[in-house]
């Protein structure tokens, strides 16, 4: 009896396994960031197009912000660009760009062509700061709270779903937390 049922049971188990695999297929290559809950790594980088103005994490304290890693060579950055623009224009959060491993002229040209949603971008030409952020592919986005702690990381495009389900609820939480104090 058992030996007859065994293939059926194995089949069902395999089916469950494959179904689970399909469900996570889109995010299989996402690597959970060990930086969640930690302070933004230290850096001192020039603003894009204004080489003499250096920005450090300390300058960004006080309000939550979304740090969006982008580059002119990054195809998916173009996909998320309208959504990033909408989010920035809605005024719900500061959106700051981190221009990753790019030529300044290419980067400025990209912003001119598609529009510049960022309050400003900082330029990481060598990609060294991005390594400290654990960036492995653009686009990536980090939601940072007013105290400079990373609360969420999005790997890949920021879509309307990501904004609705991940970013806005966390901003709401931060606001309530601040009022609770």
């Amino acid at each position, binding site marked *: 009896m058992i030996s007859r049922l065994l293939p059926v049971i194995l089949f069902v188990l395999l089916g469950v396994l494959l179904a689970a695999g399909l469900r996570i297929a889109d995010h299989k*290559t996402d*690597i*959970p*960031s*060990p*930086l969640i809950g930690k302070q933004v790594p230290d850096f001192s980088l020039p603003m894009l197009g204004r080489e003499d103005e250096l920005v450090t994490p300390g300058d960004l304290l006080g309000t939550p912000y979304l740090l969006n890693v982008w580059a002119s060579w990054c195809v998916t950055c173009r996909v998320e660009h309208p959504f990033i623009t909408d989010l920035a224009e809605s005024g719900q959060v500061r959106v700051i760009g981190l221009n990753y*491993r790019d030529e300044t002229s290419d980067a400025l040209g990209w912003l001119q062509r598609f529009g510049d949603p960022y309050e400003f971008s900082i330029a990481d030409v*060598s*990609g*060294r700061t991005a*390594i*400290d*952020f*654990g960036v*492995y*592919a653009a686009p990536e986005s980090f939601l940072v709270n007013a105290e400079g702690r990373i609360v969420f990381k999005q790997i890949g495009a920021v879509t309307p779903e990501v904004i609705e389900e991940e970013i806005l609820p966390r901003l709401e939480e931060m606001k309530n937390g601040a009022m609770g104090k």
Partner: protein
Amino acid sequence: MAQWGNSRMKSNKLRMLILTIALLLTGLAQAAEPLVFTDAEQEARYKHLTTELRCLVCQNQNLADSDAELAQDLRKEIYDMLQMGRTDDEIKTFMVDRYGDFVLYRPPVQGNTLALWLMPAVLLLIGALVLVVIVRKRSRLLAKQEKEKS
């Protein structure tokens, strides 16, 4: 005449072979980075580390094999840290702090990797059990048949 044609064909083949090998080697020549190590031990550590650490962009390659820009950056980072006299553990911690355990090809034994580490042993045990059961059944069957014959 036939002899001559044959040897010419052979030398043509040989030429093609040499050309093919030479073309294959050009890839190697480009991939090699001109790194200068203080001693052979440091070079061995560099080679060991870059094969033990995963390239994050092309996730089934290690840092040594990958040509991705990030892999190049990380190799340089590892090289610089070696020059600064950091230990292998310090370099691995540097990578894990940024990219998580995933960057290690040999994941540490801990709560969430226990299944990964124990599964081979468990599967081996199941296999051994199945084998024992089948062998016993067969030998019993064989003994029965022997009895019936006699």
